[in-house]
Each structure stands twice: as C-alpha cells, then as structure tokens.
C-alpha cells in the first residue's frame, strides 16, 4: 500500500502484511488517520504505560468488543501495559433495585470487556481510573514522552502539567497506537502544534473556581491551545499537590466543555516556565476573564431536572477521580461545616469517587475514619456511567464537576455551595 507519509521499512512491512492482515489494518487505520492531519511520519510510543478511555461494557458498543476480540484472536496485543477509565458500577453506590437491574442490562458486556482488557494488556485489577497519573497509580509519563492515550481529562493533564506529548486520541485509536507501537506525528506531538493560539488574561478579584474557569475557557477556545496569564498569582509557581489538583479539575472542564488538549499556565506549567510567551503563536486571539464573565458562564448552565425546584437527592464529587489531598481537604471541610450547623451526617447520600490505589492510601490516613463518620460513601465508580442509567438520570443529582454536568442531568454547584448543602441541609 502506498502512503503520503514516509514510513520506515519496519512500518511499511507491517502495513504490507508482514505481521498479518489484522495488524496491517491497525497500521492502515493509524496511517489514514495521520494523513488527514498532514502527518509526515509515524513515531514510536515512548511512555512506559498506555491509558484507555473505554472502561465499560455498554451493550451498544458490541462492535468495539468484537473488534478487540479480533485483535486478541490474531495476537495483536498491546506492546505496553495500560490503565483504563473507571468501571461503570459499584454496589456500594446507592441505587434502587430496578436501577441495579437496568445497569446489569446496560453494561451487560462488562464481563466480556474486562476479560478482553486483561488479554490485551491491562496493568492490574486496580487500574481502573481516569486519574492514572496519580502517584498511587504510577502511570506518570515523563516530560517529552510520546503517548498513545485517550480520556480527555488525562490527555490534557499529561500534555499540560506533565509536558508529555499526546494527541486527543479517540478510544480504539489509543489502543491501536499501543498495539503497533507507533503514532502519527502531528498536532500536540510537534513543537508548532503546542503553540498557543489564544491568550487568556485573568482579571478576577479572587481565585476562580477551577471548574468554572476551565468551562469558560473550553467553551471559548474549543480545540485551540490557550496560554493563561494571571493564574500563577493564585496557584504559585510550583506544581505542588494543590496546584496539580486545581489543574486536574480545570483541565477536565476545558476538555469536556470544549475540546482542549493542551493549555499553558504562565509561570507554572513546564513548557510555560521553559519558553514563556515564545509559546504564543502570531495572531493569537485574546479572552479576558473577569468575575462577571465567570458568573455569566455559570448562570447559563441549563438545569434539565424534570422539576428544576426539586430537592437534591444525591451528590457526586470526584469527576475526574479525587486525589488523596482532595479527600483529606473535603474531610476537614465537612467536619467543620457539620459542626457549624449542628449536624452529624451529610444531608443527602454523597459519593466521593477516587481510584482504588488512592482509596487504599486514604484508608491509612486518620482522615478516613473521620470521613466515614460523616456518612460519605467512597467509590471507584465512574459517576458519568452511573448517571447514564435512565433510572438514575431522572434523579436530582448535584455535583461540582463540570464534566459530569456536561454529560449527564447532574446539576452544577460550586464546591462552597455544595459544602453548605451537605452540611446545613438541602432545603
């Protein structure tokens, strides 16, 4: 097969069938995909681990599972171990009996999916999380590593906070990159593709809510790269736990409310520190963010509860999955809030989501027992998948995740608003 891009002899041989017909189709898919974006070559995947966005055996995705089975049958396995997004259900998360039954039908291919993942190269049974880059998980790419990852929040984090190089790959394509060991060279893999075409100037009077700021920027710049001035004033110039946690939630909102795959924070993220305003492309557009602009964005979120005045019945926090520090911080805040309002337990069923390894680490901390006393449930579920169940989506659920708001019927409130609702009461 002839290609526009220049392939190495090894890559050309694979494309011509040296490793079988299925592997040739995998390579053809990657080449065709790259050529759409003018890729000139395929480059090796250099990270130790991959990360897959597919984590759920949704019955509708049968064709995807059939395709993965075909890869297994023809020995086209991943050349690197990988982590996966979170599982779609957890018996610990409150659900009616009917909803549990519906979940079993909707995710009826979960068993098949997990068997396939193990054969294809799943790292281990605790590898299901959207925040694979947490230290407790260990899937932390190095600066400059070329990745074949999907999961919008993980890709934007890897690119922006870790300085790795990864395009916003779709599910299936990310696995194909790990199977053939190469990805097309374009977009965020190139120096040019990492330049900012938007300059965002923060002119707020206080530190903006990460979720609203990310949402505003995502909706404005869509798939472009923003260079943000003024955030280091609040986050400092070191990528400490607090800054990383903020950027995790900020990035997830930019990626889900828009299609951002890379951002630069002046004075903070690695490439912004190294190159400064040299990262800004000529003719970059400008977006000024004020308190009023953030309020406008928040006020425009639609509420699609059947009854907009309904009393919230459930709360999800942790989309993307919480860090260890977030679990500790929320414990402190909940305890203080409950004490202030004279209550002992949170007012509605509340689920904090985090990965299994982070939960294991949290269980060793004194805050764990204290959080349990507040009535909070900790789960490693994907709240988005929980809400996809039509028998759950009708429930008035609140969240401070802009990603969860975007994809489900959950209603957004800021962390401060939710804290008050959980500790004072929801009425």
């Amino acid at each position, binding site marked *: 097969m002839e290609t526009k891009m220049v392939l190495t002899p090894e890559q050309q041989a694979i494309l011509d069938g040296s490793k079988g017909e299925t592997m040739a*189709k995998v390579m053809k898919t990657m080449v065709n995909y790259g050529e759409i974006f003018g890729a000139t070559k395929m480059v090796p995947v250099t990270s130790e681990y991959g990360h897959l*966005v*597919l984590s759920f055996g949704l019955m509708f*995705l049968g064709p995807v599972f059939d395709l993965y089975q075909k890869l297994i049958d023809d020995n086209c396995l991943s050349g690197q171990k990988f982590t996966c997004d979170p599982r779609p259900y957890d018996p610990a998360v409150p659900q009616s009996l009917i909803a549990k039954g519906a979940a079993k039908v909707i995710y009826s291919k979960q068993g098949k999916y997990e068997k396939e993942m193990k054969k294809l190269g799943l790292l281990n049974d605790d590898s299901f999380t959207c925040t694979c880059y947490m230290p407790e998980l260990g899937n932390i790419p190095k600066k400059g590593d070329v990745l074949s990852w999907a999961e*919008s929040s993980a890709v934007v984090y890897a690119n922006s906070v870790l300085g790795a190089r990864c395009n916003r790959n779709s599910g299936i*394509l990310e696995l194909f990159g790990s199977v053939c060991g190469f990805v097309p060279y374009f977009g965020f893999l190139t120096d040019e593709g990492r330049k900012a075409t938007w300059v965002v100037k923060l002119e707020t009077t206080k530190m903006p809510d990460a979720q609203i700021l990310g949402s505003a920027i995502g909706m404005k710049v869509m*798939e472009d790269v923003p260079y943000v001035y003024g955030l280091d004033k609040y986050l400092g110039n070191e990528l400490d736990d607090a800054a990383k946690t903020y950027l995790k939630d900020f990035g997830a909102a930019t990626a889900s409310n828009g*299609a951002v795959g890379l951002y630069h924070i002046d004075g903070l993220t690695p490439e912004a520190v190294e190159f400064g305003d040299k990262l800004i492309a000529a003719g970059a557009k400008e977006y000024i963010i004020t308190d009023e602009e953030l309020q406008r964005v928040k006020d425009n979120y639609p509420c699609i509860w059947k009854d907009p005045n309904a009393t919230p019945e459930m709360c999800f926090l942790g989309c993307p999955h919480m860090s260890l520090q977030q679990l500790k911080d929320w414990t402190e805040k909940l305890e203080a809030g409950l004490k202030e309002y004279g209550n002992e337990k949170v007012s509605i069923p509340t689920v904090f989501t985090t990965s299994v390894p982070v939960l294991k680490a949290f269980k060793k901390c004194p805050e764990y027992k204290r959080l349990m006393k507040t009535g909070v449930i900790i789960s490693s579920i994907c709240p988005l998948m929980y809400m996809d169940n039509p028998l759950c989506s009708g429930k008035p659920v609140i969240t401070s995740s802009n990603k969860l708001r975007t994809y489900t*019927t959950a209603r957004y409130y800021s962390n401060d608003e939710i804290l008050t609702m959980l500790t004072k009461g929801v009425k």
Partner: protein
Amino acid sequence: MTEFKGRAIVPGNGTYEAVVTKNGFNTLASMQMMNLQAKTKCNDQSNPDLYKQILEKKALCLPLTIGSTTGGMFLFAAVKEGKAPSCMLFSQTIDSLAAAGAVLADVWAEDDMPVYDQLGDDFLNTVKNGDKITLKPDGTVIIG
C-alpha cells in the same frame, strides 16, 4: 442550489436531509443514549441547536466535534449498528476524534459514513434544518 467544495475524507454519493448545529457537537453527550432510542436523538442538554433532534440517517452539518475521547469509538459503533448520521459535514478542519470515527468506520465497517470537512463558515451559515443535501465524491456539497 448552492454549492460548496470541501475535502472528502470518506467520499460519498447521495442525497440526505440536513440537521444543523453551529455549536461543537459533543459526541458522547449527544449519542450516549442511542442504544435506548428507537432512532438516535441528540441528548446533549448544552446544545440548543440539536437537543432532542433526530440524528440518525441525517446529514449532520457541524463545525467540529468536542468533548470525551470516546467520540470516535461511539461514531464507529453507531455506523456498525446503523444508528449513525448518514454523513458528517464539517465547516472546519475535522477534529481528531471525529477523524478517528471516520477512519475506523472506513477501514473496519462494511458500511461507510461519508465525511467531508473544510466546507467553510459560509456553508454552516447557509444550510438549514431540513435542507436537501447532495454529496459528490470529489468533495462537492450541494444544498437544495
């Protein structure tokens, strides 16, 4: 009749009815409920142009897709299951997620979904819901 010329990523040849969004098309938010619907309808609460509109077997006219990286996977599965739009017509250069869906369907599915991009802002300003859209394999799109 108004004619536009774009890039045929997956060429097609046919006539379809348009459904139009000027907002980014969030594939996951729009299509995640399609397995529970008789005909695929847009489920994205944040997209007033398309919310609750039928997408299946329509010519989906859009600037680009946004949101979750499950996007291409959902498009591929939709094509394989006969639940996808008939074609996707992008005013801008196609994004990486939709491109993945187009290529996956082209290489691995028996039925193609024609995909054209770079049709320009004028295309999206001209086309209206319900318009008749005709595709030619060279990237030409005719409205009317």
